[in-house]
């Protein structure tokens, strides 16, 4: 793990003096490599290390811990600070009345399943969600969402006769109001961040719905492109948060750091399994221990 690697690099530094650029350069290299091995994006890792280095330089070498431990603590604290959202931003902001959530992301990232999970959670919290089937492309996407709706006990709005997702969403809202639902959970089709036409579809959907939350659903195992993916969705739509899925696997989760660093948006929720109860609040400290291995 990173801690042991850093112990080695500081073997020559005694318990006195200051952390300087020269005596920590090898440590910074180890940190950058550790982050890259955890799938943190190349530039994000480089920038993070530069910031961390600046925090380290000039610090007195404490007597109570080794310099290696001291640097690890600084890295750890920097990562926690980066991954922690600011206060109320960390949770879902769903005001009373009709709250709307738009789920977006790449193909197969877990949007439909997360929509079902979120419905289950909201019902347990006493809200009345309606699921909206705005994936009009994927074979049996509507069937999938309808099955999930039945499983959690939430109504599903769908219209197999049209491919106009904006019209579907508008109609869904009307029906939701009539049925006294108070949350609209809108599932959308997977799409490439470089597909301008489909990104534009999301922009039109957003403009119609004016959602309170636009959640980028992303696989925890995403590699280096996490940056360009998050940036594109965020610039086009104004993402309000990220849902990291399949965190029940053994992916290190560097993509989370990359997405947070580049968009400034918080990780709000994590998917930790295939069942509909497998949705957790994001814990920055758990992700950081996972990253530092």
């Amino acid at each position, binding site marked *: 793990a990173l801690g042991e690697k850093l112990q080695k690099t500081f073997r020559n530094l005694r318990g006195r003096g200051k952390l300087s650029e020269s005596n920590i350069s090898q440590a910074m290299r180890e940190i950058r*490599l550790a982050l*890259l*091995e*955890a*799938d943190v*994006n*190349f*530039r994000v890792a480089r920038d993070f290390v530069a910031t961390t280095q600046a925090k380290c330089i000039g610090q007195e070498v404490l007597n109570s811990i080794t310099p290696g431990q001291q640097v690890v603590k600084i890295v750890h604290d920097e990562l926690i600070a980066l991954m922690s959202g600011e206060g109320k931003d960390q949770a879902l902001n769903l005001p009373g009345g009709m709250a709307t959530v738009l789920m977006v992301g*790449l*193909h*197969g*990232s*877990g949007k439909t399943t997360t929509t*079902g999970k979120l419905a289950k959670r909201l019902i347990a919290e006493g809200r009345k969600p309606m699921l909206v089937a705005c994936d009009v*492309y*994927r*074979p*049996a*996407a509507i*069937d*999938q*969402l309808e*099955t*999930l709706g039945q*499983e959690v006990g939430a109504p599903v709005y769908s219209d197999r006769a049209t491919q106009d997702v904006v019209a579907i969403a508008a109609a869904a809202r009307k029906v939701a109001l009539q049925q006294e639902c108070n949350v609209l959970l809108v599932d959308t089709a997977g799409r*490439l*961040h*470089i597909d301008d036409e489909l990104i534009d579809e999301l922009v039109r959907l957003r403009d119609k719905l004016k959602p309170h939350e636009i959640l980028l659903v992303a*696989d925890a*195992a*995403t*590699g*280096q*492109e996490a940056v*360009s*993916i998050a940036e594109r969705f965020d610039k086009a739509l104004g993402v309000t948060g990220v849902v990291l899925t*399949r965190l*029940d*696997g*053994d*992916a*290190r989760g*560097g*993509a989370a750091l990359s997405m947070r660093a580049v968009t400034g948006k918080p990780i709000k929720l994590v998917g930790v399994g*295939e069942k509909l109860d497998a949705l957790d609040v994001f814990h920055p400290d758990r992700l950081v221990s996972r990253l530092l291995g």
Partner: protein
Amino acid sequence: LLGKPGRLTDADIEDLEEVLIGADFGVGLTFRLIEQIRSVEKAGSGGDWMAAARSVVLEELGPKPQMPTMQATPTVVFLVGVNGAGKTTTAAKLAWRYKNEGKAVLLAACDTFRAGAIEQLRVWRERLGISMVEGAYRADPASVLFEAIAKAREERSDMLIVDTAGRLHTKRNLMAELEKMVRVAGRAVPGAPHHTWLVLDANTGGNAIQQARQFHQSLGLTGLIVTKMDGTSKGGALVSIQKELGLPVLWIGLGEAFEDLEAFDPQQFAEALFP
């Protein structure tokens, strides 16, 4: 970044690192390849280092793999992989390709777990106009497989394509379920499954190698399919997997329609990285 002729500078090395790491090659392989690129470039006649990089990656990948043989009747193909990788869509693409080559293809809907999974493959099989064997929702996938093999025999299918449920390689019980399906296939048809292909999402980082290791250890994979190569991810993890496990990359997925499946071409892969 583009082809500066002559010796590699520190800035070039940084650029190379960014390209290779950025393509999800992973840290270890990146550093090893950069060393090789340096020596190729030193030995070269001062051509641009892009060409050296291309040749090193091609060396690493080896020649374009042989097309898989479909000799047995039925030839049984398993598609396995983690959740959302593209197995079901790839099953449809493969069925389309082989049907167009004149093969009698049968589909087995062995994802009996996920919501809408059977319905999804039903839509594809209707578009294809081929038969499919499905079981009840939440039936034992091994029993659906058994029925599918029986049907393949009865219909004299050339090929049986088995779609399985997505599963994380870390879930022991789910991997055991697949291991059981391999045994069931082997007892029903000698040598089956003849092909066990891991479907990998090109957007996956280092975890792809872990996925491949575990699936290979459990099942004995015979090849890889890398999907979503129409996105911006380069799928560099496939190089490490091929190197470490000796598994050929057979197909790449380039979209969501039938025809969006191509045989893997190492030359194109290397050129996409270093144009």
